[in-house]
């Protein structure tokens, strides 16, 4: 059995396991931190994944792929070099979707005309774009997302949603809703592989147990069985 609370929670009987969104968010946060993001950035990654799964989108899969691609990579050169311009590139050549997304979200830019060169895991950038403007479209090869307030629709080719790299992504004003509309999802499915990957990254945030910490850490004290 795998380590970790999520991983260890295989149902004894009943089948059809789904995850609460809170569980997915908590796992994503720990995994992102374990994957090297600071706590504040890990919070952003977790909220992004939460937003994606609440539309039934494969945010956990994207996060797992992203963490693998960026493991041990210095993200400081994966930010837009000139965030006030309309064309974003990274010094490293690869824009990190989480770091780039937080820049967009932090800047609160009211315009929505932006071209991003070489954006990794573009699906993870989508929530930040949606938080930044209440209506816009985000496109990369094979995928067009459009949103207006809380309504989101997509037209996408298979596989392109989980593309690990968009040579060119663009954020532009919304025109009209086309494609499939999303419904609010209250539960999430996690593939075995994604669960394992995220659990693996999350485990890096856990301190190894020692006998001393087991006793003192949780606070042994007066007896508890009376």
């Amino acid at each position: 059995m795998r380590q970790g609370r999520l991983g260890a929670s295989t149902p004894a009987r009943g089948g059809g396991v789904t995850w609460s969104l809170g569980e997915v968010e908590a796992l994503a946060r720990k995994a992102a931190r374990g994957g090297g993001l600071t706590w504040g950035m890990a919070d952003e990654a977790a909220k992004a994944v939460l937003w994606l799964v609440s539309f039934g989108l494969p945010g956990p899969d994207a996060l797992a792929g992203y963490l693998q691609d960026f493991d041990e990579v210095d993200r400081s050169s994966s930010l837009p070099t000139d965030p006030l311009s309309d064309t974003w590139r990274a010094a490293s050549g690869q824009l990190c979707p989480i770091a780039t997304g937080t820049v967009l979200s932090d800047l609160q830019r009211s315009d929505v005309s932006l071209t991003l060169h070489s954006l990794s895991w573009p699906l993870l950038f989508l929530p930040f774009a949606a938080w930044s403007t209440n209506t816009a479209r985000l496109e990369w090869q094979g995928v067009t997302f459009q949103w207006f307030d809380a309504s989101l629709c997509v037209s996408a080719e298979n596989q392109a949603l989980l593309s690990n790299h968009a040579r060119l992504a663009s954020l532009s004003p919304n025109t009209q809703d086309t494609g499939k509309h999303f419904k609010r999802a209250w539960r999430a499915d996690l593939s075995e592989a994604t669960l394992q990957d995220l659990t693996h990254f999350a485990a890096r945030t856990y301190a190894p147990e020692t006998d001393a910490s087991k006793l003192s850490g949780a606070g042994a004290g007066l007896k508890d069985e009376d």
Partner: protein
Amino acid sequence: MSETPRIDLRSPEMVMKLARMGSFHQSRLSFMRQLLRRLSSENWRFETSVFDIDARGVGHAVYTAHGPERSYSLVAFAHDLPPEMRSDRVIATAWDTTFTLFDGVPEQSDIHRLHANVPLQEEGRISGQELTLSRANRSVRLWDHVVSRLASGQQPDAELVDQVGYLMRTTAVYGSGKFGAADREAIADRDECHGPFQVEMLTVYLIRTFVMDLVEHMARALAPETAVKLDPAMRRRFGIGNSTGLGMAPFLVTHPALLNAWISAREEALARVRSVAQASEAEITHFRQAAARARLHAYGWHSEHPIQIEKLNDLRVDMDRLLAHLETVDLTAPQPWEALHLWAETQLTVEGQEMLVSLLMEPYGPLVDELAHCMATDEAMCWRIDGTMTTTALRGILEDVYGWALDLDWEAQAPQARVWYVSENKLEPRLGERFEEPLSDYEQPLSPGRDAARLYRDLDEDEPLAAFLMRHPEHRHIARRAQISARMSYAEIRDNTIDAAMLPIDMLRMKLSFFGASEFDPRSDRWVRITMFQHAPFPDELSACAKDDWALPPLPEAAE
């Protein structure tokens, strides 16, 4: 009732100190009392649809609460637990009883599914149809005593009952999506679930009822000829226990908007009562009775822990002083509660001052109870960082909210002696010693004071926060907290959560007091036992107890 002149709220610098928060008591705004007010005013109906438990105490039961729109069912599993496996610690793997709150009325297939999972607790899975997961262990000394007394046709010894206060202790009540349960967001738009921890409180309330039925059942199984039931007045002396450890403490730091909502409601309630221009005769009588009952409560509260023994001594002396003062003070004078409040600030310890805060609310349901509606919030509403704020403006916030931390010497060991971390084994929050164990790499972001001081130190030029955070992502979490605290005065504990002398039980008590817990009994500096729903009416008594007057022990003459 006139409310002029309006008294200001107490300052966050005063309220948000751990020593004060660790002296909070239950009040009209507590979540248990909110729940019972609703169950009573909406005439909820209760039924025990299954009670299939054998003479050894093994089986299951289903208790359903029917509200105006929906029903909720406690599904209880009773086990035959060998004594050597009984432990309240989160590291336990088996319990006397295990529970889930089902959203609706379960069918046989649900019971089968839950039977395979709920007894496993953390190692099992529940689904979006369940709202909570919980377990409880017997208080062995009281359980055996009550079973044998009832079996022989006698009532239990009142003194022993009061000493322990409950027959079973819950050791966790998980909700909000834990282990597969429904997310809070999925049910928060229901009236009955909107307030904080309402499904958790309903779970515990139904557990208490089940436990009392179970003990009578066991006595009957032992001696069907002679066994009797508990007298109603005796029955109400039993609450349900709870053991709570460190796991609860980080919640207060990770939910700043919610913390602000709770404290704001309480402080607003206090300010409203202090602002009352003139108290009526009925209000004065109500207050005097509540104060006398609180004194009784203080004297009946047991703890073996040195810290709590000292606090209890403080509280008892405070209650004596308060009652003596009430003999002489003229409560018919203008703004009597403000005068009493000012008196307490100089004459009582923090324990007594905070008890007075709770007592002042007692006569003023119409003024106070509506504030319960302000105690839920959505953390997401204030979560996004405003990167257009200048770092100069942020410095101002840091000086205002975290001034106490900027003044500390963070090079010294004592202010940063502790580390909050999560252990590999049980995945529970722990507290370690930074300079004795290699834990710093695993530190959780639960030390806002130190982190604010670090951020402050690195704010070197005037620029938009967005630009600063691009260079300093390590400060992002605390920049967010600072912006939240700038908008919400009570969002941040204004004390050092990693200091060598910090007492986690202060954080636990603050949260548990909002639940409505009483009889805080720390078992170390980091876990605590409490009693919940002691003296509360049982489901069949709710209609006769519409006054929300149960939370303090009855005076002897009123007990019958």
